[in-house]
């Protein structure tokens, strides 16, 4: 089965936890992405993540001002991660169990990539085409 490091996104956008939610929204819109890694002081694996979901449900829909709220308030912490040598089936299991669409990929203590739900789908299709798929 294909390992996650074969099909992850390596370019991860991150922002400091002290930034405003508005700044985060700007980033997401500019980069056309749906989530940002939030850097907290300390180990990388204890960082948080903020997604478009958080922004909408926790801030915008409640009528709060995104310029006045720090991302640290709404970020999910700690991040969910998986070892780079894990395969896509394990990722799918984690996503299913914790009901999330993004899992970070780590090389020991370092975050090196991100696997999204679409990546899992793509990777599974490729594995099938390669004839590696076992149900």
């Amino acid at each position: 089965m294909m390992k996650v490091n074969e099909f992850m996104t390596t370019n991860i956008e991150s922002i400091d936890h002290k930034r405003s939610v508005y700044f985060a929204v700007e980033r997401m819109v500019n980069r056309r992405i749906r989530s940002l890694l939030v850097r907290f002081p300390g180990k990388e694996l204890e960082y948080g993540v903020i997604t478009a979901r958080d922004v909408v449900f926790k801030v915008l829909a409640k009528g709060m001002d995104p310029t006045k709220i720090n991302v640290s308030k709404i970020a999910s912490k700690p991040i969910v991660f998986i070892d780079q040598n894990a395969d896509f089936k394990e990722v799918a299991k984690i996503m299913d169990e914790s009901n999330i669409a993004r899992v970070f990929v780590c090389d020991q203590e370092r975050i090196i990539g991100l696997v999204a739900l679409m990546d899992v789908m793509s990777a599974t299709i490729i594995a099938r085409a390669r004839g590696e798929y076992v149900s």
Partner: protein
Amino acid sequence: MFLEKVFSKGKKENNVIGDIKKQINLLCTACGFFKSALETDNPSLMRQVMDIERAGDTIRRDIISRIYEGAFLPYLRPDLCKFVEIVDSIFDLLEDTGYRYLDLKLPEQLRGECIQVAFLNRRICEMLLITFESMLKGEDLREKILAIRIYEKKIDDIKFELIRDARKIEITNFWEGEILSQFLSCLTSISDVIEDASDHLQVIHVSMK
């Protein structure tokens, strides 16, 4: 001549097919060398890619002349030759990319993404071989071609990130920038050509149904 055709049980055809497989395999090897050369920044490894390109050229000539010496129905020949030519053009593109690389000092902040593209290029070549083999067996190619398209999209995504990152690099000399830009666009267009090749396999597949 007719009886010969029946009793050879497609020997000529099998030779051609063996050679095309060899050609695609060689392409995978070349992509592998290219990736290692990028990872280790090793120019001599990169020159091997050019050597492989020459070997690929020889195979292509063999295949085309064999096809026109009478392997396969004339109806199928132009499409098969076209496919072989497309695969050959991938070699050329890879070689061009290699020459650009030798001419340039790749900024370290781009290397990671370039390696990833090179890695995916190799994967997509392997998928092309799988697709070709499926076509020979007469299997449905839809899933294989979808896999190739997924790879191609993935590389496309990385390409945009690469271009964005490349913009941040300060260029002092016109040619330095020009060659870097050429290198990036060659590197990321290899997958497009492979996608073309796979589409052509679909054409051959359908035309023999």
